[in-house]
């Protein structure tokens, strides 16, 4: 609980479904990268659900018949194929209901499969996109400009990156890769083939000396290609990644001299495997 205490403090409100809509998506993005908060959410949820014992009351008898009638005309969904990554499929319509954090991967896949639930899902995703953008404005958004690959600078709150992020979050094939134990800093990479874009949500990045920047790398076949440079004041940021991240097997972030490097030279501060299974 060293950074951003106000975000950590939202675990209670989150479990109680008491976050403002604008905060929900941002907090879920935070859950991706914060195992402490995930664990806390998990540990208090059981207690919260027990509160419902005090409000238990028999429903009107006719509700039973009505429910059974209704389900008689509806086919249960087939089981999903086995999941192979950190995500799971519980609560397809209920991204916030899942203790391990939201899982847009399955949500997106599900949306294609099931028209019946797409409306609500879309709504959530639209809200999520808007909310994340709002949240990012608050933490300082870095845009990676591509006019000059080696002198791309972070620019505050550019509208094109908001749009790009919103589109990414809306993508039907959104993939999310959360970092694991092997990464010094926590974070997640979001990627979509449909939009051809990718973003990184990063936390706990170390401080930079003057004359240094962070540089993101998309690594395929062990060959790193720059995915842009950026800076952040408080160690937490979200950036759109440049270049061809779609085929990357690993996304990493290193510390490099101002302006970035052709090949990584500094310490790796963040890495996550993004190979598609």
């Amino acid at each position, binding site marked *: 609980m060293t950074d951003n205490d106000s975000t950590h403090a939202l675990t209670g409100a989150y479990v*109680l479904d*008491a976050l403002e809509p604008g905060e929900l998506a941002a907090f879920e993005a935070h859950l991706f990268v914060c195992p402490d908060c995930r664990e806390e959410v998990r540990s208090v949820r059981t207690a919260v659900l027990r509160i419902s*014992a005090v409000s238990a009351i028999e*429903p*009107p008898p006719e509700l039973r018949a009505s429910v059974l009638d209704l389900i008689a005309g509806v086919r249960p969904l087939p089981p999903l194929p086995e999941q192979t990554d950190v995500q799971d499929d519980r609560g397809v319509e209920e991204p916030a209901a899942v203790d391990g954090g939201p899982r847009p991967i399955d949500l997106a896949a599900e949306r294609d499969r099931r028209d019946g639930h797409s409306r609500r899902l879309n709504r959530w995703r639209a809200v999520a996109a808007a909310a994340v953008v709002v949240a990012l404005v608050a933490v300082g958004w870095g845009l990676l400009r591509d006019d000059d690959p080696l002198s791309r600078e972070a620019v505050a709150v550019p509208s094109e990156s908001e749009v790009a992020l919103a589109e990414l979050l809306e993508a039907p094939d959104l993939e999310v890769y959360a970092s694991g134990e092997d990464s010094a800093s926590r974070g997640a990479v979001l990627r979509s083939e449909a939009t051809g874009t990718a973003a990184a949500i990063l936390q706990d990045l170390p401080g930079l000396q003057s004359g240094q920047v962070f540089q993101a790398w998309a690594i395929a076949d062990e060959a790193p290609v720059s995915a842009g440079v950026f800076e952040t004041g408080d160690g937490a940021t979200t950036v759109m990644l440049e270049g061809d991240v779609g085929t990357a097997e690993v996304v990493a972030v290193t510390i490099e001299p101002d302006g970035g490097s052709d090949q990584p030279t500094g310490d790796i501060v963040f890495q996550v495997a993004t190979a598609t299974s």
Partner: protein
Amino acid sequence: MRHITPAPGERPPAGAGASSDEASALAALLRRSARGDADSFARLYDVTSARVYGLVLRVVRDPSQAAEVTQDCYLQVWQQSTRFDAERGSVLSWMLTMAHRRAVDRVRSAQAATERESRYAVREPREARDVGETVVDVLEAERVRKALGTLTSIQREAIELAYLGGYTHTEVARFLDIPLGTAKTRLRDGLIRLRDSFGGERR
């Protein structure tokens, strides 16, 4: 993990905080439902509907809307029964989480804030007297009240407003006339204390 030990001859309450037997019985009903077994689903309904409907009713207040939300919720349970993952918690937890979110969505999307504030009365929880069931449920409600009683009054009120009232933490802060940061903290501290007073049943 430590469980509250039921008195001899009693079954532990179904659900969150339930024994693994109860939980796996519900999971078995859900599994059979997933294969289209409506009888199993009916039994699942019978065992869980008081908790689900009661929670929804407490949040939305209006019985006909509560019935509607409850029905939607069971439809979702039926459709998504194959997607339930026992690794992540009990069936009842899954259902209640879903139900609460739906209830909260309902009141917020239809929120006429002034009207709701005037109708607000959650500080005196209605007794669950119509629950015709079992000693077990009454005992569980009693345990929960007792645990809630270990909280400070601000913690308890904040949690009840948020969970049973369906209010956001911003609204909770306004109700209790405390700074927003304090409301967040009370919600979190309160839940941690509640969790601990339930006997450290962590997962």
